[in-house]
């Protein structure tokens, strides 16, 4: 199943104001892998994720999703495959009610009504949010918002899931259920986060980004127990490893 492969080759990206956010990123993620992306604030994690579905296009280098190289032409196609969950659920939930929001993606895929309702039902069920369906997003708590944001992306049934700081602002219980959910998603996923315990828990592989390039890439257990590496990148050992 080659369509779950993500490959970044020498990816550079410069913002219009001249900031060089990515300076030669290289990695390859194969089907079913779950990869954590960690790094200091401003190291380029969010910029990297925005390349996953063509919100940003590389200044040079290539991003390949499945069999398709990411270009202006292919990005509509790629957006069907990659679901991105952004950092702030308020930006992700832009429709007036939860139902409308979760249905937005499937409707854009051109599905008929019954199919859309079925998808919405299933996606909300997966995040235990069925009773929220008629509420407007501004009546939801932070945890509920992030669940619905996830549902709105899962409803499109993406092959690849990319999450940007999914556990920020979640209370411990919501964070737990998020982790439980992420473990059930068996396709490829990439998670950018400062929550190293979450990464350790969910991802078997971890990529450390520093200053726009890959600093380290390897098994999470190994990387996340390397104190010097982490501290060089403004990070620290996951709490669960600190006691040892």
């Amino acid at each position: 199943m080659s369509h779950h492969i993500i490959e970044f080759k020498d990816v550079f990206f410069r913002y219009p104001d001249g900031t060089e956010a990515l300076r030669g990123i290289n990695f390859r993620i194969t089907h079913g892998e779950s990869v954590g992306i960690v790094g200091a604030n401003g190291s380029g994690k969010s910029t990297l994720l925005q390349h996953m579905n063509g919100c940003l296009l590389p200044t040079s280098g290539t991003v390949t999703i499945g069999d398709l190289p990411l270009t202006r032409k292919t990005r509509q196609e790629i957006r069907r495959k990659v679901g991105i969950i952004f950092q702030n659920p308020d930006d992700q939930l832009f429709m007036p009610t939860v139902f409308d929001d979760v249905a937005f993606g499937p409707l854009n895929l051109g599905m008929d009504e019954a199919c859309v309702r079925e998808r919405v039902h299933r996606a909300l069920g997966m995040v235990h949010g069925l009773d929220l369906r008629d509420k407007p997003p501004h009546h939801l708590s932070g945890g509920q918002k992030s669940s619905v944001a996830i549902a709105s992306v899962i409803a499109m049934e993406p092959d690849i899931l990319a999450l940007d700081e999914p556990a920020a602002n979640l209370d411990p219980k919501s964070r737990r259920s998020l982790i439980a959910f992420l473990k059930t998603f068996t396709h490829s996923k990439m998670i950018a986060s400062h929550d190293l315990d979450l990464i350790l828990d969910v991802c078997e592989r971890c990529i450390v980004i520093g200053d726009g390039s890959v600093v380290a890439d390897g098994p999470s257990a190994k990387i996340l127990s390397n104190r010097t590496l982490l501290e060089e990148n403004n990070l620290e050992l996951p709490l669960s490893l600190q006691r040892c």
Partner: protein
Amino acid sequence: MTFDAQYFDIGRLDRLSYRDTFVHHLDPRVKVIATMLFLFTVISFPKYEVVALVPFFLFPVLLMTLGEIPVRFILRKVLLVSPFAILIGVFNPFLDTGTVAIIAGIPISAGSLSFLSILLKFTLTISAALLLIATTSFPGVCHALRRLGLPSLFVSQLLFLYRYIFVLMEEAMRITRARDMRSFGTRGAGIKVFVRLIGTLFVRTVDRAERIYYAMLSRGFQGDIPSLRRARIAVTDLAYLTAMVMFLAVFRFYRVTEGIGCLAQGLLR
């Protein structure tokens, strides 16, 4: 009203609109039409009309009771916006001084009648508008407008506006709190600080619009905002509208109030 008061006020009205009552379940289109008809009928009364306006209070009273809307909340909101109408109307008693009736020995001027009429109309129209939103969620009103033929572009951005009012109000509230905490007295509330606050809010807003746009693109947005709402007009909706039209027609064209008064007088004698 302070910022916080306004914020919670609008939030409360918004929450009321998601209640689960008979009135809330009526089709939004029917409610929008009924409200417009009501408003039109009320302001169509001549400027000295007072008595015939009284029966129209039945409409807001019914909506409030059936829709379980707190009376005091609505009354307070009506009072809050009354200054302009009062300011313009309050001169009538002084400018239009001809006596039209003498009640208990006190001469009543035409101007005070028309002022009273303005006040009644004001209370009726404003409470009807508030009750429309209190009994119909804003997305409901928007979809009604869409179905009633307003351009989809307009309705789409109206929905965005509604969605982000609360987000931006919270953001603005955080900014003003930060200002007030550090401005000890009035110095920080001046226009220079205000402009910088607003400027910051503006920049953040535009950045947010960009992020929203990305989120939309990520979910296959191609220029059209799709919707599944296909509410059908039910029998109860039609019944409601018919009752409304009959109510309005009867009390607009027949002087029922005075009829009742005469009847009562006859019985007393």
